[in-house]
């Protein structure tokens, strides 16, 4: 799974909340428990003393004035117990019934809970007193288990409430983070649009945290475009510098002196043709921008009419030229690249067509498909591979469609597309080109 700020924030916040919640609730329970035990201890001590006070001297020696002690000592397993020992006598509270209190090793309060009857948990206090000149040992016990049970309940309720609070907090945090990250999301969407050729720049209006990023991206885009323009201008000049002398040489071939030397003329013509084709192909390739400019796009409705005007200009007398494209279709590639590809494709088709050439452009999912159909002689299936083969020589005129398709293939390769030669429904050749949109 890929890294996400939202997910990471949610995870860390959840962990923090859980750890803090557990720590706090445990600490709280511990404090309350301590307090309650202290309180019970005080109570037990008071009880022991009030039992002592309830001892009165009767006719048969010491007796316990039942009026002075609580009814809870009478009810079996009530949770309040006592044992009074003196002079080999041992009085047990009726509530103890047949249960023997566990032994306590030392006087005073015993910190540990002792097992009592019926799963009770007892806190025990033992005190030595002297009254009526007799040593009296009073042991009182109190059942602590109801407190423990309510602690457990409190823990369950607390855990439930804590969980609820956790969910609520996380939900709230999600909302807050989403709101805080909104500019980031907007920038992300804009970059996506940039790649799809729907915009050429990022919006400058962003929070200050994002400003450097957006500015840098825009600057980079501008710089790339400038570099591209500059290199194209340079290539244009180079082309001019190479092709004009070439044109002079070609025109010199018309001279009578050379016309008298047909062999020499033929060699020169062939070599000049090679140079010209080589220059044309390399300059075309060098001019391609490929994917250097993410914001660039080709607007079919805007560019195709002028391309077809140009085509009609050259071939319109003899051929019917048509194009179909989805309305408002934009190809996310640079205008010059696409024009160069379509221009060469159409020009090539026009050279071979008898009467009709058709161009169709369609978006299929993330891919853009281009078909150029003609009603010419087509290419034999056995020869198609030869035309498509990488690096096939430019002067291979045997298969006709050679040069034009060579340049098209260069462009398609630069744009990471595929080129296929098929049978056209019009009867001739169909060239199918599929370009994958770079947005994955």
């Amino acid at each position, binding site marked *: 799974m890929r890294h996400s700020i939202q997910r990471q924030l949610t995870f860390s916040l959840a962990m923090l909340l859980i750890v803090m919640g557990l720590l706090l609730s445990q600490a709280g329970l511990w404090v309350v428990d301590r307090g309650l035990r202290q309180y019970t201890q005080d109570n037990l001590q008071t009880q022991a003393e009030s039992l002592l006070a309830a001892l009165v001297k009767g006719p048969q020696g010491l007796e316990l004035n039942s009026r002075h002690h609580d009814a809870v000592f009478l009810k079996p397993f009530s949770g309040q117990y006592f044992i009074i020992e003196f002079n080999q006598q041992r009085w047990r509270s009726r509530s103890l019934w047949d249960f023997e209190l566990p032994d306590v090793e030392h006087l005073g309060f015993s910190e540990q809970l002792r097992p009592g009857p019926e799963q009770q948990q007892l806190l025990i206090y033992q005190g030595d007193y002297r009254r009526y000149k007799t040593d009296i040992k009073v042991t009182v016990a109190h059942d602590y288990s109801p407190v423990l049970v309510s602690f457990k309940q409190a823990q369950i309720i607390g855990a439930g409430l804590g969980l609820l609070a956790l969910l609520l907090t996380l939900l709230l945090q999600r909302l807050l983070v989403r709101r805080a990250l909104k500019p980031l999301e907007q920038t992300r969407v804009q970059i996506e649009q940039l790649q799809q050729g729907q915009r050429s720049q990022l919006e400058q209006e962003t929070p200050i945290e994002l400003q450097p990023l957006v500015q840098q991206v825009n600057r980079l885009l501008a710089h790339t475009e400038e570099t591209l323009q500059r290199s194209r201008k340079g290539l244009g000049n180079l082309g001019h510098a190479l092709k004009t002398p070439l044109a002079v040489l*070609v025109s010199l071939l018309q001279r009578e002196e050379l016309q008298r030397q047909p062999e020499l003329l033929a060699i020169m013509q062939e070599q000049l043709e090679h140079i010209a084709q080589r220059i044309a192909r390399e300059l075309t390739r060098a001019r391609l921008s490929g994917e250097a400019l993410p914001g660039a796009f080709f607007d079919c409705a805007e560019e195709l009419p002028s391309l077809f005007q140009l085509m009609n200009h050259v071939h319109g007398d003899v051929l019917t030229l048509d194009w179909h494209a989805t309305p408002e279709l934009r190809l996310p590639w640079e205008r010059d690249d696409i024009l160069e590809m379509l221009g060469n494709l159409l020009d090539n088709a026009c050279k071979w067509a008898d009467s009709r050439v058709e161009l169709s452009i369609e978006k299929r999912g993330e891919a853009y498909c281009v078909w150029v159909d003609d009603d010419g002689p087509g290419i034999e299936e056995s020869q198609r591979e030869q035309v498509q083969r990488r690096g096939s020589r430019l002067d291979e005129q045997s298969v006709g469609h050679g040069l034009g398709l060579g340049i098209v293939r260069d462009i398609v390769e630069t744009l990471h597309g595929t080129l296929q030669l098929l049978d056209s429904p019009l009867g001739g050749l169909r060239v199918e080109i599929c370009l994958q949109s770079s947005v994955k």
Partner: protein
Amino acid sequence: MRLLLVEDNVALADELCAGLQRLGYVVDWLTDGRDAAYQGAVEPYDLIILDLGLPGLPGLEVLARWRAAAISTPVLILTARSAWSERIDGLKAGADDYLTKPFHHEELYLRVQALLRRSHGFSNQNQLSAEGLHLDEARQMVHSRGETIELTGAEFRLLRYFMLHPGQVLSKSHLAEHLYDGETERDSNVLEVHVNHLRRKLGKAVIETRRGQGYRFAGCEAQL
């Protein structure tokens, strides 16, 4: 036909001038974009061949200035810039045709002929035909009622101009301006001599004289 060639490569321009003159065009040659922008706007050219990589002022800018000044002279761009986007930009700037270097001279001459025909309303014709006459521009001959008549260079130039402007009254000075180079040729009565030659070869009615106005091409059909 008076052409303006704007090309900064001297060797190429020399070849082109010579070739075009052989084909019976009067050619003016300029190398600088600023000169071209001015002269193309004031001289009555029938066609302009324009290079794009010019010193002084870029070719496209020159073209844009002409079009902005409503100069509708057909312009053929002759350039090393062969990218399709540049061709489209050229046409958008107002060019009528676009030829890329290197090129075969024949191609250029055919384009020039076609463009001249088209700009005079003879579209979809690979041959100049008007009023029963068919002009073979490559061999400088004319076909009329099954006959093939050879023409001299001067006669060819004159007839071609007439055929491109059928039915229009053309003044002597207008014809001289578009057909002849240099003041000496223009001042003499060369024009009348050539008109008479054409009448002798093609029939008297082929060119009417409008007294005080000039000549009008009536064609062969007028004689029937």
